[in-house]
């Protein structure tokens, strides 16, 4: 079949990229919002614990919480002002989460310890990792897994390859693309820090070949800095940016089912994370802002915005010219894996790579009809699962054999549901099936 | 040990009773069954050896072969022909026929004794078409030379039943085979 001869993976889909609206608009900074809402949990793992009290005055970059465990990161004040409330507020994931609300004093005074650090590369490994954790960095591609954990692999898993993920395969999103064009130096230097922590011999950046400008800029920057990193031009295919698919495309190593990239000696980080790592280690700057692509038919001026963490969508959208009348759906992230949002008061968090506003026509999903076993989902599944059988089992409440069908290997990329002619939301069923399997596992101990 | 004997005894008693009952029934029904079979064969023979006197048909039997001779008179006068039984596997069963031929080898009459072919298709070899008085085999074979029979598909003159070529061909070929065997035997004699 020779699918390994090209730098790609088997399966996958080709949705329209829809990136033209924002791919050429430079990142612009969003004005400071009057209040920010900072949830204590913006990452995968234990929520962090607040260490400030209502009424306290904070400066930008001040620590607001302490980590709730090893797999946890703190959050920081993203503006200066007064803590107004510490209470549950709507969270992008759908439920209400304890959040620290800060009212701006409009001065944006920064914590004084933030600034360029000398000889940061010479710091020892533990210090670098501590700075990364203290800066509150969690994977900025959307998965929000605490970065310091990923950079501390257990001793029995030697890492020889570090990959930077600049694929940005989700349609519509351009934040990583713009970041690579505008901040290539910070990204590469961040990469250098990560490589020094991991001790990896090989390092490279994977970029889909629909971003030739980014590939060129990155190559030039690497050459200018005299570093040995490679830039891989990858074919455009969704989900090229999924960890396992990226690794197999670049290194031809297949992460074992149920395993992690470190099982094949790899660590993958998003380009935005690399920049945040640079800022954390070289400037001690915590993660208080990120680039968000605001796009879609439902917003007047689609653009790439540098926004403070905690900025409510309403403020962000107002800056982008406001919503059109026919808004139907607001999605955090891309259209394939993003989450539909219920309210405009939800804030930007560390994993908010984009805000996609779809008009009504695109929002309503057609009625699901019965599966006709066309096998399109089987053909596109990048994990080589059989989505139709998984979904049917879930639909008829047959959960006992799901685990044997490898349901837990699903990466929820949505390719199956994208191609389904019967409009069945396979991902929805499979997610529920995974949930049931995990529940059964917990019960069994 | 005692238990085993008791169980064995009961089982023995029951089987003995059953055997006795069966032998009684057998002795009563045996003549009936033979009678019915005889009647059936007689009916077939009257078709196969049409023209012979019903009491002028004699079974010729020896170790290897059985056939029938038919006379117009009871006292073995005027031999009109012979009848033999032949069979061949058709579409889903053995098709057994009784064939009567005259001394020159021309078929006098023919009757299907048993078959389990596809209803509506293969079974039509033994059935009368609507408004006919003769079955398909009678219509096709009577008056033909047994030796030269072949279905139309094989270039012969037996018009096979649409959709039941296999059954038609099986009957035809069994007639030929049966006649061949009969002929061998009779010439040897």
């Amino acid at each position: 079949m020779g699918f390994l001869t090209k730098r790609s993976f088997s399966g996958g889909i080709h949705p329209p990229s829809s990136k033209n609206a924002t791919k050429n608009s430079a990142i612009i900074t969003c004005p400071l919002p009057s209040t920010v809402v900072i949830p204590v949990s913006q990452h995968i793992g234990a929520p962090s614990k607040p260490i400030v009290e209502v009424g306290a005055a904070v400066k930008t970059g001040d620590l607001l919480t302490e980590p709730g465990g090893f797999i946890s990161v703190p959050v920081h004040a993203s503006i200066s002002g007064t803590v107004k409330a510490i209470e549950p507020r709507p969270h992008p994931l759908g439920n209400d989460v304890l959040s620290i609300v800060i009212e701006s004093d409009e001065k944006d005074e920064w914590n004084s310890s933030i600034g360029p650090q000398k000889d940061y590369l010479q710091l020892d490994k533990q210090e670098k990792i501590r700075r990364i954790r203290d800066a509150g960095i969690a994977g900025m591609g959307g998965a929000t897994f605490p970065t310091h954990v990923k950079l501390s692999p257990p001793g029995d898993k030697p890492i020889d390859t570090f990959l930077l993920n600049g694929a940005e395969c989700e349609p519509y999103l351009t934040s990583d693309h713009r970041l690579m064009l505008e901040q290539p130096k910070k990204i590469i230097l961040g990469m250098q820090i990560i490589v020094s922590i991991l001790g990896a011999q090989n390092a490279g950046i994977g970029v889909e070949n629909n971003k030739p400008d980014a590939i060129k800029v990155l190559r030039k920057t690497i050459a200018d800095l005299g570093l040995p990193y490679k830039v891989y031009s990858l074919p455009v295919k969704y989900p090229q940016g999924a960890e396992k698919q990226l690794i197999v495309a670049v290194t031809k190593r297949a992460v074992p089912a149920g395993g992690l990239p470190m099982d094949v000696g790899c660590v993958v980080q998003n380009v935005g994370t690399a920049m945040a790592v640079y800022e954390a280690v070289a400037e001690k700057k915590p993660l208080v802002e990120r680039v968000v692509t605001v796009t879609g038919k439902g917003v007047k001026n689609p653009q790439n915005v540098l926004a403070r963490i905690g900025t409510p969508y309403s403020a962000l959208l107002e800056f982008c010219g406001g919503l059109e009348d026919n808004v139907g759906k607001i999605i955090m992230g891309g259209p394939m894996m993003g989450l539909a949002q219920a309210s405009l008061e939800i804030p930007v968090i560390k994993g908010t790579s984009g805000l996609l506003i779809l008009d009504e026509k695109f929002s309503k999903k057609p009625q699901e009809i019965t599966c006709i076993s066309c096998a399109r989902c089987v053909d596109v599944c990048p994990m080589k699962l059989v989505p139709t059988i998984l979904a049917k089992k879930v639909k008829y409440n047959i959960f006992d054999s799901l685990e044997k069908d490898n349901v837990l290997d699903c990466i929820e990329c949505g390719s199956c549901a994208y191609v389904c002619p019967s409009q069945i939301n396979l991902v929805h069923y499979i997610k529920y099936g995974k949930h049931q399997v995990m529940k059964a596992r917990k019960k069994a101990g | 040990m005692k238990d085993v004997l008791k169980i064995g005894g009961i089982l023995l008693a029951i089987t003995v009773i059953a055997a006795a009952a069966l032998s009684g029934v057998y002795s009563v029904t045996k003549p009936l069954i033979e009678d019915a079979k005889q009647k059936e064969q007689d009916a077939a023979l009257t078709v196969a050896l049409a023209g012979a006197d019903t009491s002028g048909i004699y079974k010729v039997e020896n170790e290897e072969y059985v056939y029938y001779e038919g006379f117009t008179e009871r006292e073995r006068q005027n031999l009109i022909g012979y009848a033999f039984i032949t069979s061949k596997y058709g579409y889903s069963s053995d098709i057994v026929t009784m064939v009567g031929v005259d001394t020159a080898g021309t078929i006098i009459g023919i009757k299907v004794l048993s078959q389990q072919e596809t209803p509506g298709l293969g079974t039509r070899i033994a059935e009368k078409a609507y408004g006919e008085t003769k079955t398909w085999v009678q219509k096709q074979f009577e008056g033909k030379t047994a030796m030269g029979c072949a279905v139309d598909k094989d270039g012969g003159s037996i018009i096979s039943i649409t959709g039941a070529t296999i059954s038609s061909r099986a009957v035809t070929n069994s007639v030929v085979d049966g006649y061949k065997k009969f002929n061998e035997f009779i010439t040897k004699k």
Partner: protein
Amino acid sequence: MEKKLFVSSSPHITDRESVAKIMFTVIAALVPAGIGGVYFFGPKALWVILVSVLASVATEAVIQILMKKPVTVGDGSAILTGILLAFTISVQVPLWIPAVGAFFAIAVGKQVFGGLGFNPMNPALLGRAFLLASWPDYMIRFDLARPRGGHLAGIPINIDGITEATPLNVFRQLRDIYSNTTEFTGVQPDVHQQIDTLTSSYTSIKNLFIGDVGGCIGETSALLLLAGAAFLMYKRYIGWKIPFGYIGTVALLSWIFGGKTDLFSGNILFFVFSGGLILGAFYMATDMVTSPVTFRGRILFGIGCGVITVLIRQVGGYPEGVCYSILLMNLTVPLLDRWNRPKVFGKVKK
């Protein structure tokens, strides 16, 4: 917030394919073969197709209304079933035959199981099998099926009993004569010659390819069927695994066993273009609902169809076995899918 936002799970975009679009595209791909059928067999072919389609659609609608289900005749699947059924019957049937067949196909072949997506067997083929078992005398009558003067080279002139003038029928009859060696029937001297002319002469193969031979309405023209199939493959509505697995197997086995008496002497082109193989392999075996979803499953499905087809053609009671072979393999689909799950990404063999 005065406006209500839609909230649903990801993904939020789809490629806008739909079952109806797939069905109508397949129907479009069958149009050339349908026109060919009408051209070769005369206007009655059109009536057969129309009756079959109308009966399918009406049956589906009526049953769905009676069962108080949403009426889904708009998805085109009933129309497709009607067309495929009409394509597999002889033009000489009375018009109530396609109507009854379509009723059985939809009612018993599809709606009894719960409608589209739940039927274990291809409804059109089931309808055809029902008709063939119920009224064989109508279903195998092909004697007038060549009004355009098309012909098969090698049809023996001295055998006048042939009423089933499809290529495979003629072949079977000639070969039966050839191998039926009782000295009483005797091998006719020119049978040998006739078989060769029938199976390998240029005229025969050309007419077979164009479709100018006896047979069912939509199955004779390999050319038109392949044109439609190429379109469907280009649109990716049918894959290569089932049809090629199927036809490849038939070609190989026919070459080995399809000769007069010797092995490895069958003419592949004759067996591939004869009968309903092209129609069956590209349009019926590939029916999404009743074929496997897995890669290996589809290949094995195709091979299985091929083996059974050749088995029926060479030793079975019928000259053609496409219909039954696909129906039989349809029943193995759940097993094939269970045994041939793809190896999950990154799964290491233990």
